[in-house]
C-alpha cells in the first residue's frame, strides 16, 4: 500500500486482499491494487498467474472468498450493479454477435445498460472515434479481427465507464492493430481521465504503461512505473526483469486457468 489514504479514496478501482480459490487451486492469494483516475495500469503475468481470475472478480462474474473491491468508492461486492455501470470490459474471447451489424451490437449493449435514446445517439460518434466511421451497418462477421476488437472497445465505452478492463485484448491481433488499439486507449486515459487495467503477458505492451503490476501465482510480485520495476530488479530492461521475477522453479507446472478450456 504505497498510496496515502487520501489518494486511495479518490481511486477508481481499489482492491484489498482479494482471495479466490477453486477447490485446491489458490488462484489469488491476497491481491491488493489501486488505480487512480486517468491511470493506465498494465497487469503483467505469465499464463496462470491469476489475471483471468482477477478479471472475473472485477467483472462481477464471481465474488472473492475474501477481501474487498471498491469501484469509484462504492462497495462493488455489496452493490455490484452500481459498480458494473461504471466498468467497461473487453473480454479475451470475442463476444460480438457476428450476425448482427456493428450498430446492432452497440444497440444491444445500450439496451442492456438502459441507456435509452441518449445512449443510441452516442453510437455513431463513438464508432468514429475508434476509427470505424462508415462501418456502422456492416455485419460484424465481415470485419477483420482488429476492427472487431475496436467495436468491442467502442461498446465497452458506450455507457461512459470510469474503469476500462482489457483482458488480454490484443491476443490474436497483428502488430499494427495492436499498436492502434493501445494508442486509442492511451488517448482516452489522457483526454477523458479513463482508468484502464490492461492485462497482458507481453512485456512490450507493459513498457509504455503508467504503472506495471506484476502478478505471479496469485500474488503481487512488484508494482511501480516500468522504470521503477526495472531498476528494482537490477536488470536493464523490463523484459529481463519480468523473466527474472517469474522464472519457474524446477519441476513446477504453473497454475491452472479457470474457464479456459480448449474448444
Amino acid at each position, binding site marked *: 500500500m504505497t498510496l496515502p489514504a487520501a489518494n486511495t479514496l479518490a481511486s477508481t478501482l481499489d482492491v484489498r486482499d482479494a482471495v479466490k480459490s*477453486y477447490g485446491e487451486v489458490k488462484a489469488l492469494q491476497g491481491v491488493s491494487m489501486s488505480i487512480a483516475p486517468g491511470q493506465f495500469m498494465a497487469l503483467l503475468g505469465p499464463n496462470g498467474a491469476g489475471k483471468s481470475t482477477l478479471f472475473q472478480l472485477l*467483472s462481477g*462474474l464471481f*465474488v472473492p472468498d475474501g477481501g474487498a473491491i471498491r469501484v469509484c468508492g462504492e462497495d462493488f461486492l455489496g452493490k455490484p450493479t452500481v459498480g458494473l455501470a461504471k466498468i467497461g470490459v473487453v473480454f479475451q474471447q470475442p463476444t460480438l454477435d457476428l*450476425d448482427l451489424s456493428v450498430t446492432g451490437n452497440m444497440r444491444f449493449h445500450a439496451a*442492456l445498460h*438502459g441507456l435509452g435514446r441518449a445512449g443510441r445517439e452516442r453510437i455513431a460518434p463513438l464508432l468514429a472515434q475508434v476509427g470505424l466511421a462508415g462501418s456502422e451497418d456492416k455485419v460484424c462477421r465481415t470485419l477483420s479481427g482488429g476492427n472487431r476488437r475496436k467495436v468491442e472497445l467502442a461498446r465497452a465505452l458506450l455507457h461512459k465507464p470510469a474503469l476500462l478492463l482489457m483482458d488480454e485484448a490484443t491476443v490474436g491481433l497483428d502488430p499494427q492493430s495492436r499498436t492502434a488499439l493501445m494508442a486509442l486507449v492511451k488517448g482516452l486515459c489522457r483526454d477523458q481521465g479513463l482508468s484502464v487495467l490492461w492485462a497482458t503477458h507481453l512485456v512490450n505492451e507493459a513498457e509504455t504503461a503508467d504503472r506495471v503490476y506484476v502478478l505471479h501465482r496469485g500474488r503481487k510480485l512488484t508494482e511501480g512505473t516500468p522504470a521503477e520495476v526495472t531498476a528494482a530488479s537490477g536488470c536493464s530492461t523490463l523484459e529481463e526483469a519480468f523473466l527474472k521475477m517469474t522464472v519457474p522453479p524446477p519441476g513446477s507446472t504453473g497454475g491452472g486457468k479457470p474457464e479456459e*478450456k480448449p*474448444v
Partner: protein
Amino acid sequence: MRAGHALEALGAISFRELRKFMQQRSRLLSALVRPLLWLVVFAAGFRNVFGVAVIEPYSSFIEYQVYVAPGLLGMICLFNGIQSSLAMVYDREMGMMRLLLTAPLPRAWLLACKLVAGTLLSLVQAYAFLIVCALFGVDLPWIGWLYALPALLLGGLMLGALGLLLSVYIKQIENFASTMNFVIFPMFFMSSALYPLWKLKESGADWLYWVASVNPFTHMVELTRFAMYEQINTTSLAVVAGSTTLFFVWAAYGYDPQRGMVKKRAQA
C-alpha cells in the same frame, strides 16, 4: 433497477432471441416436423387402440389426434425450453454470457429475461403447430387458440425455467444427449401427453400412474388441454405455477455468484 432499464433489457434480449430464431429456418422446421410425425404417423396407428371413454374436459368422443394435440404442444415447449438452456451453456463457453452478466442489472432479472425470450420462441412454435394441426384437419375449437395462450405461456415458462436449472448443472454442450435421455423422454412419455392417465391405471402400472400424476409436464399438458375447452384445471394450474417458481428460484440461486453451482464449478 429502474423499470425502464429493466424493460429495455428485456426487449433487447427477447428481440435478439427471436431474430436468431428467424435466421435459423431449420430450427422451426425441425420443431414442427417432430410433433407432426407423432400427429400423422403415430396417431394413425393409435387411433383404434384409444378407448371410447369420455373424459374431462371433453364432452363427447374425440379422435386420438384431438387428444394428442395438447400433448404435442407441450412437447414443443419442452424441447424448446431445453434447447434454449442448451444455448445458454453454449453462450457461457463462448463468452456471450459473460457480456450479459456484466450488465448492471440483478442477475435474477437477466435470467428472467432469458426465460421470457425462450418462452416467446415456444409460443411462436406452438402456434405454428396449431396452424399445421388445422391444415391436417385436427378438430380443435377455434376459441381454444385464444384460451390456450395463457396456459402455453405459463407452461412454456415452467419448462424454460427447468431448462435454466439444467443449464446450471450441465457442464458442456455435449451433455445434451444425456439430457434427452434422462429429462426430455421420461418427462414426455411418463405423462398424459400421449394417453390419458386412466389408461395407465387400468393396465396395472401403478407406479407409472403415480409418477405421471406428479410429473409437472402432465399438468402443463392438462392445463393446456382444459384451457382449449375454456376450462381451468386448478390442480394443474397450481402445480405448474408452483413448479415454475421453484425451478426459477433454484436456477437463480445456481447462477448467484456468491453461493451457486457456477461458483463451485469455475475450475472444472
